[in-house]
């Protein structure tokens, strides 16, 4: 691993902690901040960044965490990956914990009840919007929409665990892809 000078683990932790502490709105909001930090410090060649984002997106887990693991590992190996991940997650972990501890004492407060009565339907809308956007940009083939609909019904109406559905789809997709490969070679 030939990093330009050796980045200290503490520095890695602090840079990712800053990104973690200041991005509101989840993983996608973190990408530009992480990219900016990487560019500014010349930690990772600029042309590698899109690859890192693409791979972090297709691996299981959360994008921001995956990018931290990837970048940390490229810079300092396993200890670097741990330092970067701790940095990216610790600030929100502590903040959420503080909120959870305070909020559990305020749940029956009439003001809190009123505020959350307004918030709850909004949360449902905020889950629906990214789903529709994902469907409109990602569902390009004819079978994509029926597959989305089938997954939706299986989980909501039939109560099947998403884990089983993902496993089944992955198995079928893998088998089809392997068959297509063999067919193409012949």
């Amino acid at each position: 691993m030939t990093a330009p000078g050796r980045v200290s683990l503490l520095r890695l932790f602090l840079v990712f902690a800053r990104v973690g502490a200041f991005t509101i709105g989840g993983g996608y909001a973190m990408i530009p901040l992480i990219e900016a930090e990487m560019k500014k410090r010349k930690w990772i060649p600029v042309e590698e960044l899109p690859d890192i984002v693409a791979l972090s997106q297709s691996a299981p887990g959360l994008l921001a965490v995956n990018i931290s693991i990837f970048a940390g590992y490229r810079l300092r190996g396993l200890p670097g990956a741990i330092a970067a991940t701790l940095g990216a997650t610790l600030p929100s972990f502590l903040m959420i914990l503080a909120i959870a501890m305070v909020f559990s004492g305020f749940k029956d407060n009439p003001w809190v009840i009123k505020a959350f009565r307004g918030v709850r339907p909004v949360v449902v809308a905020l889950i629906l919007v990214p789903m529709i956007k994902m469907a409109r940009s990602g569902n390009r083939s004819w079978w994509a929409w029926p597959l989305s609909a089938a997954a939706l019904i299986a989980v909501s109406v039939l109560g099947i665990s998403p884990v089983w559905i993902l496993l089944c789809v992955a198995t079928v997709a893998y088998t089809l892809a392997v068959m297509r490969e063999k067919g193409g070679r012949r």
Partner: protein
Amino acid sequence: MTVFLQLFFTFFIIGAFTIGGGYAMLSLIQAEVVTQHHWLSESAFTDIVAVSQMTPGPVGINTATYVGYEVIYAQSGSHFLGILGSLSTTLALVLPSFLIMLLVVHFYTRMKGNPIYEGVMAGLRPTVVGLIGAAAVLLTLRFGPGLDVSLVKENFPDWSSWVFFGLAFVASYWGKFSPILLIVLSAAAGLILY
């Protein structure tokens, strides 16, 4: 003790099966924590998601941390055990990513453009869309045995909730309002109107 192990195992599975980011993770957390294990009610989960969206950091991590605390605290009444609960869910959530990403870094030039890998992902992407949709449906409707469907009253108590829902949908989809702003505005509106 068994609850800790169950939480750890559940969130490890959630971490391993989350494809497609934070919202996909919400659908898995919802299915496991609310539908399968009944650790939290729909409304309690909805509140947690709202707070997690407003707090800095990835939504999935925030929700996992909060759920870990809440489930253990609700059962034990102890803040200390609640903190241990949030530690175990957060750690369990990140651990699969960690193991898988280490493999990915090693093989990353070979994975890109591999037709079999691309084929599997092509099947998983539309599935994830459906899973996220299911999370939204399950926070709105409750499906009982047979064909018994009812509204989740805690989230949609009366017609005014649908106005909140509709306005937020329009503002987020076409108006590009940020989720944080919408949650803050709806909390303020709730305080004034109810």
